C-alpha cells in the first residue's frame, strides 16, 4: 500500500468516523440521561433530511437558514417523541422504554416510506459544492473538509455547553446520577427533554451531511446507526470525549479493513473490533467500571 492510498483511506475513515462519533454522542447523551438506547435516532435524522430537501429547500431563504430551520424542526420532532413516548407510564423498566424507541423507529420508517418511498433515491445537493483542493499532491474534497469542520465545530460547541453553561452542568449531573440530581433541585424531566432535542438536532445534522455523499433514500441512516451504537459502546458510555474517540477509531480501523481485506467484511470487521475491546475492557475504552451495590 503506497502512501497516497493510505492517506486517502485515513481521511475517508476520519470522515465516516466523525459521523459515527457525532451520532454516538447523541445516543450516549440520551442513554446517560434517560437510560434508553434510542433506536430511532437515525430514522429521525432521515426524516429531517427529507423535510429539508423536499420542503424547506423550496422556501425563499438562504441555504444556511434552511439548514438551521430543518435542524430546529428535527429537534422539535425529537422533543415531541420524548414527551409522547418516554413520559407516558414512567414506571416502566428500561427494557420497555427501549422497545418504545424501536416502535418509534418502525413508525418513522413507515412514515418516510409512505410519503417518499416511491420516488427514492433522491439527490441532495452538497452543502459545500463540488470539487476540492490539492494539498501537496493529495486531493481533499470540499465535502470532506466541510464535514470535518462542522463535526469539529459541533463537538466544540457541545463541549462548551457541558463545561460552561448551567444547563450543561445540570445535564452532567443527571447523567451521573438522576436521583441525586433531582434531590439537588435539578428538573430531571426538563433536562431529559433538552437532551432529546439536542440529540435530535445532532442526528438531523449528521443525516444532512451524509445525504449528499450517498443516495437520499428511506434507508439513509440504517448503515450508520449500528456504527454509532458501536462507537458509543467502544468509547465507554460514561465519557463523552471517549465516545468521539471511539467513533473516529472505528471509522479509521474500518476504512483500513475495507481497503486491505475486503469491502464485504466491513461490518464483521467492526463487530470483531467491538468484541475485542469489550473482552479486555467491558466498560469501553474510556469508560469507568460501574460498581454494583446490593
Amino acid at each position: 500500500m503506497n502512501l497516497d492510498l493510505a492517506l486517502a483511506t485515513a481521511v475517508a475513515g476520519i470522515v465516516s468516523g466523525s459521523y459515527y462519533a457525532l451520532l454516538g454522542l447523541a445516543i450516549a447523551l440520551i442513554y446517560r440521561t434517560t437510560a434508553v438506547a434510542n433506536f430511532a435516532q437515525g430514522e429521525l435524522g432521515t426524516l429531517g433530511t427529507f423535510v429539508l430537501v423536499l420542503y424547506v429547500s423550496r422556501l425563499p431563504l438562504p441555504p444556511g437558514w434552511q439548514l438551521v430551520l430543518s435542524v430546529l424542526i428535527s429537534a422539535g420532532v425529537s422533543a415531541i417523541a420524548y414527551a409522547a413516548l418516554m413520559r407516558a407510564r414512567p414506571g416502566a423498566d428500561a427494557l420497555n422504554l427501549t422497545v418504545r424507541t424501536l416502535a418509534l423507529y418502525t413508525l418513522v420508517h413507515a412514515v418516510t416510506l409512505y410519503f417518499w418511498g416511491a420516488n427514492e433515491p433522491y439527490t441532495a445537493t452538497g452543502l459545500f459544492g463540488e470539487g476540492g483542493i490539492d494539498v501537496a499532491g493529495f486531493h481533499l474534497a470540499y465535502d470532506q473538509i466541510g464535514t470535518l469542520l462542522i463535526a469539529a465545530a459541533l463537538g466544540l460547541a457541545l463541549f462548551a455547553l457541558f463545561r460552561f453553561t448551567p444547563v450543561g452542568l445540570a445535564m452532567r449531573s443527571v447523567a451521573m446520577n438522576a436521583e441525586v440530581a433531582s434531590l439537588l433541585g435539578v428538573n430531571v424531566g426538563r433536562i431529559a427533554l433538552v437532551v432529546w432535542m439536542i440529540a435530535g438536532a445532532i442526528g438531523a445534522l449528521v443525516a444532512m451531511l451524509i445525504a449528499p455523499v450517498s443516495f437520499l433514500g428511506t434507508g439513509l441512516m440504517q448503515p450508520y446507526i449500528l456504527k454509532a451504537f458501536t462507537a458509543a459502546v467502544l468509547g465507554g458510555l460514561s465519557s463523552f470525549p471517549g465516545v468521539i474517540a471511539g467513533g473516529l477509531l472505528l471509522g479509521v480501523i474500518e476504512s483500513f479493513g475495507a481497503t486491505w481485506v475486503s469491502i464485504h467484511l466491513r461490518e464483521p470487521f467492526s463487530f470483531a473490533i467491538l468484541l475485542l475491546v469489550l473482552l479486555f475492557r467491558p466498560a469501553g475504552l474510556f469508560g469507568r467500571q460501574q460498581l454494583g451495590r446490593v
Partner: protein
Amino acid sequence: MTAQLELEAPAPLANGASAPPRAASWTVGGFALLCIAGALVGDYPRYVLTLWLVYSVSALGLNLVMGYGKLYSLGHGGFMLVGAFGTAVAMNHWGWPAPAAVIGAALFAIVVGVVVGLPAIRLKHFSLAIVTFAFGITLFQLVKAFAYTGGPQGLFIDAGALQALWGGRLLWVVCCVLALAGLAMCHRVTGSRTGRALRLIASNETVARSFGIGVTFYKLAAFGLAALLGALAGGLLALITGIVAPETFGPDLSILMFAAVMIGGQGRLFGPLLGAAFVVAIPELTQDARALAQIIYALLFIIVVTLFPEGLLGMIESGWRRLRRRP
C-alpha cells in the same frame, strides 16, 4: 441503584410451576383443537397460522433470555438464520434428509447461542444489546458475502415433496407439536431451579452470586435454549417457504422477535404466543390499507408498548383482576 429483593412468590401465570395441572390439560386440548381447525381451513389461513406458530416458537426462546433473565438479546433473528441456513446447507450441499437437517442445525445453534451468550457474562444493558444486535447483522452480512450460502439471493430448498404431504398439512401439524413442546419446555425450565435462578439474576446478579448460583452457567443455558428454539423455528420456516433468503433473516427479524416478546408480555409463559399473533396478524389484517398498513402497524405497536409496559397479557391479567375484585 439500589435493587429490591423480590422474595415474594411471583404471580401464578408468571411462574409455571405453580400453575395448576388443569391449565396443562387446557393447553394441550386447546392445541389439539387448533391443530384440527388449522387442518380444515384453506391454504392461506393455514399459512398465516403456521407463520404465527413458527414466530411463537422463536419468541418463546427469546422470552427465556429477555423476559425471565432480563438479558438484552437483539440478535434473535441470527439464531433463526442459523437454523434456516443450516437446514438449507445440510440439505443442498450435504444431501441430508429434511428432519435431520433441521435437528442438526438446531443442535449447532445451541453452540452458537452459548458463544453469543459469552459476552453476557460481563456485559449488561446497552452494551449487551449492541453486541447481540451486531451479532445478528454480522451473520446476515456473512451469509450474503459467501457463495456457499447462496450470496444475496440465498438458497432454494427442494422441499416440495414434504410441503405436499397430506395436502400441505404435515408441516402444520409439525408446527403445532413443536409449539406445544416449546411451551412445555419453557414451562418446565421457568418453573424449575433454572427459572428461579434466572429471575434472581435478573433482579439482582450480586445477590444471586452470593447465594451460590452459578450465574455464568444459567446465562449461557438461557442463551443456548433460546438459540435452540430460534433455530428450530428458522429451520421450519425454511422448509415451509422453500426459500432461504438473507433479507428474511436480517436485523428486521430480530427487531420483530424483540417486539413480539415485549408486546405479548415479557416473562410470561403465554406472552410470546400473543405477541407473535400481534406481529403476524396486524400486517395481514391491514393488507387492504396497502401503503398505510405499515403506519397502522407501527401506531398500534407504539400504543401497546407505551400504554401497557407489561404487554398484552399483562393488560389482560390486570383487567381480569380488576373485574374479579368488583363483584
